[in-house]
């Protein structure tokens, strides 16, 4: 077998790139966060000092199909964050996109 005929097999074994989106959803500053307050109180009771405030949010990881371009991926994830993952009445969101090899 020649080296050339081995190349297609080798190419299939290379890791493919899946984009991962990280979405952070947090309560707007004007919205009361009693859960954050409860956590703040709890950590102070445990003994942590110097904690001025705690607010709780949500974190989502979305793995995207490799067929999408970076621009398409960002558009899709931004829309998903706005329409579903966050409630714009009470929450803000931030999207981070990175390409990384699938393990």
């Amino acid at each position, binding site marked *: 077998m020649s080296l050339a005929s081995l190349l297609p097999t080798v190419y299939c074994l290379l890791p493919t790139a899946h984009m991962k989106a990280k979405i952070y959803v947090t309560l707007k500053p*004007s*919205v*009361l966060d*009693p*859960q954050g307050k*409860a956590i703040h109180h709890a950590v102070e009771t445990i003994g942590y000092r110097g904690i001025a405030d705690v607010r709780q949010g949500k974190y989502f990881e979305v793995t995207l199909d490799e067929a999408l371009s970076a621009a398409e991926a960002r558009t899709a994830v931004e829309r998903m964050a706005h329409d*579903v*993952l966050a*409630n714009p*009445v*009470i929450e803000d969101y931030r999207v981070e996109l990175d390409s990384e090899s699938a393990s």
Partner: protein
Amino acid sequence: MKFGVVVFPGSNCDHDTYHVISKVIGQPVDFIWHRQSTLNDCDAVILPGGFSYGDYLRTGAIARFSPVMGAVKEFAGRGGLVMGICNGFQILCEAGLLPGALLRNANLKFICEHINMRVETTDTPFTNRCQRGQVLSVPIAHGDGNYYCDAATLAELQRENRIIFRYADAHSNVTKESNPNGSLENIAGICNRERNVLGLMPHPERASEMLLSSQDGRIVFFSLADTLAELAKAS
């Protein structure tokens, strides 16, 4: 006239609501499965209480995308009467049919108890049989009933007389102590600008028969039935 009670996966007050409409109010009523894209020719639609989709992501956040909600939006858009009770109220807010949002109760507890709600206005299809200032003893059962909206929305609700029910004491006073969940301005229920969509956190269907210690809630259903009867006469 015919009422419809929408059933989402996780709704659990659908049967109580159906029972009150059928047996206490004495009107025809259908269940509407959330996957239907039509409303079975109902004249009034109720989104009942419960834990649709397990309250995953946020209460009502996933139910608002159910196929039936397209029909509910269209129905509401042409003046159809829609009432959301508890989880139903949450779904209406998530769907944008009502403004604001329902947050976690301020004291972080799930509260299951009778409260008093004061009727703020009788100028709705849901309260036209009531007296202004009338106190209704109705139970709540929720962990996320803390009504919130921004200052501009609150001003609009007040200006347009769209706060329909407020938590109060037995003597009709709106007080901090009578507010079970921290809701802004003790708001227990609101309506949309056109006054055909109501959302409320308390459960009138659980206070429609003396067997459950209060029948104050039935007046909301009777008001609805009266409105539908008037509309049928007029057409």
